[in-house]
């Protein structure tokens, strides 16, 4: 077994044991994930999305949000960065007019908090 094959197998093994290996680590962007979790209940996100760590969040209207930190593209439109995710959460109708996700009524700070919570879903 040569060194190159070992290196490839080693990388595969690492990929298999940690989903979090694929999710970027964002520097702090001013979002509070604990407050974000409260806001997720407040805004009734769970009525449309399955969201780990939130009670009664088993909606099937939109995609599940498990491992959201790994999601590369938001709503098929925006690269998943804190700024884009905050914007999407606050103004989904501006990003994809006519999509089924309503404007959430969350302020920019609240959207930032929700984004911070979603980034804990590694």
């Amino acid at each position, binding site marked *: 077994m040569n060194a190159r094959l070992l290196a490839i197998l080693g990388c595969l093994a690492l990929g298999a044991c940690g989903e979090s290996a694929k999710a970027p680590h964002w520097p702090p962007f001013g979002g509070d994930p604990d407050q974000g979790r409260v806001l997720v*209940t407040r805004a009734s996100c769970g009525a449309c999305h399955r969201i780990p760590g939130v009670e*009664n969040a088993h*909606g099937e209207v939109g995609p599940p949000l498990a491992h959201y930190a790994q999601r590369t593209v938001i709503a098929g439109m925006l690269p998943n960065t804190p700024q884009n995710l905050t914007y999407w959460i606050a*103004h989904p*109708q501006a990003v994809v*007019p*006519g999509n*089924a996700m309503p*404007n959430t*009524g969350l302020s920019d700070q609240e959207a930032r908090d929700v984004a911070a919570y979603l980034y804990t879903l590694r």
Partner: protein
Amino acid sequence: MKRWLIPGAVGLVLGYVLMGLVVLAVVEFGLFDVRASTPHKRIVAWAAHKAMIDSMRLHSRHVQPPERFTPADVVAGFHAYDTHCVMCHGGPGVARAAWVKGMTPSPPYIVDSARFWTPAELFTIVNDGVKMTAMPAWGDTLGRGRVWNVVAFLEALPYLSPRDYDALRRAKGQMGPVFTGPKTAGPVPAQNG
């Protein structure tokens, strides 16, 4: 057998008295946080949600839905929904009113409620309301016929796109978001309702 009977009975009674005192203390000293601005504790949230589901299932057993719903029922249901329900429950692409996020429990978006509840259960929820939430018993004001129309609309709702809902609103004469196609961002409404 008789040895433990009396101490057992005394212990049982004392246990119940103690539980009653604890409940009284929680009520009297305001130990249960009733403020809507703070979320339920997780165990309370689980219990309240489960109690609601199981209670609705029990109380809807005697309810007989109509044979079938007609398109006219669905449209009549849309009118009632758009007038009375959308500000709390939203719709496909339609936001709830701004103050709704201050409610505990939060009225859910019910776009796919028909996937989770039977028609009889939906009828019971709408007709009889839900205690300790802001969900009224609409049967009082709308009457059973209109409530069944709303159920008909809820059955159709998972199949209505945001454009369909918007078209229904415009036919009803409501202002709504203008969807001009995927490349153009139309004006975004401040809030609905």
